[in-house]
């Protein structure tokens, strides 16, 4: 088991013909992901690293039975690409692209909710998702993720930050802890998949025994996750929130990462998480060490 994607997931790459798309598409395929198709309106019938290119997502789905799509299209085309994927019959859409306008994100999030309620969107501006040993969609370096061990204990990871997601995978691998699925939800204002979406599935996933959640300053997603954990989650949760020392009013890179009006601080998020019984580390390494304690207690 894993959440969202596993070894049966067949993936289309929208943007496979571009430099980033072809690089990561090939890496994902080498990892073992079923990379079954790419799309490009003018390059149908050609191949990229042996993967066939179709004109549209709908055609690619028809020919390959793909259920997921990974979007590497530049920001101006993302809105149309997301809708093309949903209309083409894909159930899981991963948008790696950064720099998508917030109004586009808000629009396609709500449009999907309404017209394609069964479609799960991940991103934009996210590193993707990896179920180690089964499927890797996006830009995560697969070799830094340890496969889940039979019978566990294994950890499910959900993170708002790309590089901190890799950091978490790496910390756990150093400690010889397996990962069921690692989801990078991205740092944009309107993420398609939330902490809660992932935590709910990890709680239900028999392969996952503990959950690691990596947050950052800005917004209230961590606080909402804390409320959810308190009410619904029995599995142990370890967390780290980046930006403890970030000055208020300054955007720290991510569109979402800003402390404004005293809200969205790392301290407030930490407090909310600790009140929900979550163990919170001061840095990624400390969070890794806390997870080792948790996992040792589960063995």
């Amino acid at each position, binding site marked *: 088991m894993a959440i969202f994607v596993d070894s049966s997931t067949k993936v289309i790459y929208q943007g496979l013909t571009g430099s980033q798309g072809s690089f990561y598409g090939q890496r994902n395929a080498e990892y073992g992901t079923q990379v079954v198709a790419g799309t490009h309106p003018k390059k149908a019938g050609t191949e990229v690293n042996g993967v066939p290119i179709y004109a549209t997502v709908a055609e690619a789905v028809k020919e390959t039975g793909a259920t997921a799509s990974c979007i590497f299209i530049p920001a101006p085309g993302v809105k149309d690409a997301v809708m093309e994927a949903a209309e083409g019959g894909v159930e899981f859409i991963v948008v790696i692209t950064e720099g998508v306008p917030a109004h586009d994100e*808000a629009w396609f999030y709500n449009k999907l909710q309404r017209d394609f309620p069964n479609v799960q969107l991940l991103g934009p501006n996210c590193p993707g998702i990896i179920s180690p040993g089964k499927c890797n969609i996006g830009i995560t370096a697969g070799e830094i993720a340890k496969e889940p061990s039979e019978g566990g204990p294994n950890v499910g990871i959900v993170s708002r930050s790309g590089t901190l997601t*890799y950091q978490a995978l790496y910390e756990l691998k150093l400690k010889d802890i397996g990962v069921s699925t690692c989801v990078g939800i991205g740092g944009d204002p309107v993420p398609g998949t939330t902490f809660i979406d992932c935590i709910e599935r990890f709680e239900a996933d028999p392969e996952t025994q503990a959950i690691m959640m990596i947050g950052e300053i800005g917004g209230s997603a961590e606080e909402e996750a804390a409320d959810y954990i308190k009410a619904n989650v029995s599995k142990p949760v370890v967390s780290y929130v980046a930006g403890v020392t970030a000055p208020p009013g300054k955007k720290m890179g991510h569109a979402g990462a800003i402390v404004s009006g005293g809200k969205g601080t790392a301290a407030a998020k930490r407090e909310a998480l600790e009140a929900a019984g979550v163990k919170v580390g001061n840095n990624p390494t400390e969070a890794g060490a806390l997870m080792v304690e948790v996992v040792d207690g589960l063995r």
Partner: protein
Amino acid sequence: MDLLEYQGKQFFARYGIPVSDGEAVTTVDDAVAVADRIGYPVVVKAQVHVGGRGKAGGVKLADDADAVREHAGNILGLDIKGHIVRTIWIEVASDIAEEYYASFTLDRSAKKHLGMLSAEGGVEIETVAEENPDAIAKIWIDPVDGLSEADARDWVERANLNPDATEGAVDILRKLYTAYTEGDADLTEINPLILKPTGEVHALDAKVTLDGNSTFRHEDYAEYEQTQVRDEREEDAHSKGLQYVGLDGYVGVIANGAGLAMSTVDIVNQVGGKPANFLDIGGGANAEVMAGALEVINNDPKVKAIFINIFGGITKGDEVANGIVTALERVDIDAPIVIRIDGTNADEGRAILAEHESDSLISKPTMVEAAETVVALAKERGGQ
């Protein structure tokens, strides 16, 4: 991107929102010429990216040319919370019967647009929200549906504005929503939105923040870039396309990804050091980008040591290592550099660095070790 008031008003005017006639000027003589043209009385308003202009003496009413000359002379060059006034906006003074508040922004929790309207305008909305939250009428708008006239009318009625303002408010709010969505704004705010004694509703102020990610479909937004306020380091970084935030310490920080950069700043603090900056070189960073980042850090005289923290996803370790080597050939870097590389092509990256390793180029395997090393080096070199 935050717009100055006059830019915000020009932005509103494009969407048909009534604003006062006026012009932005940079000299006293031009101020008088504008006032003579638009007619007295006029208001002379400082154009700065900071609130509290009125209290600082940056907004003055003038009945005649002499008064304009006096106020414009005083306001130009005025220091408002560290912002020097270079531009003033001269506009026709308005008679005010009532002052309201109106805004649109994104509610990230609800994932819908949030409109806020209050009969208590002219004061900080945060104060109203704290002291009398019921005085703010809110509406959540699905971006797919937009704001219908019926919904806007219902919203205005809930806000308990003067009934004379209803028609004008409905019209302005719908236009303000269009400006917010079509203009790709993170925020459009009118405070105060006024009702004139003659019954018209009018935007007396304009606060607009535009989404920097939308410039590909708004070529004209490039001009707003010119008026953004940044410190010199931030200006330098911005011109190189880097995400940089200046801080007060002595350890230069370069990392890939906002989260890792934040985490690097945190860990430098946690091991007893003080970061000089936040710098995210982003995804897809190549040798050119890394060289630029090192140049930006090197230009900050307070930096005593540099911490490069890279975890490879889109940014590949060998590209980063090549970038550092290229930058070292190109720029004379004074401060020692401590590097931690992991992830995609990390081994290749470390191998490239190993050929160049020295007292001033040190590679460490973990974030904590790298942080401790860089902070110790910075302190040895006088960082405090």
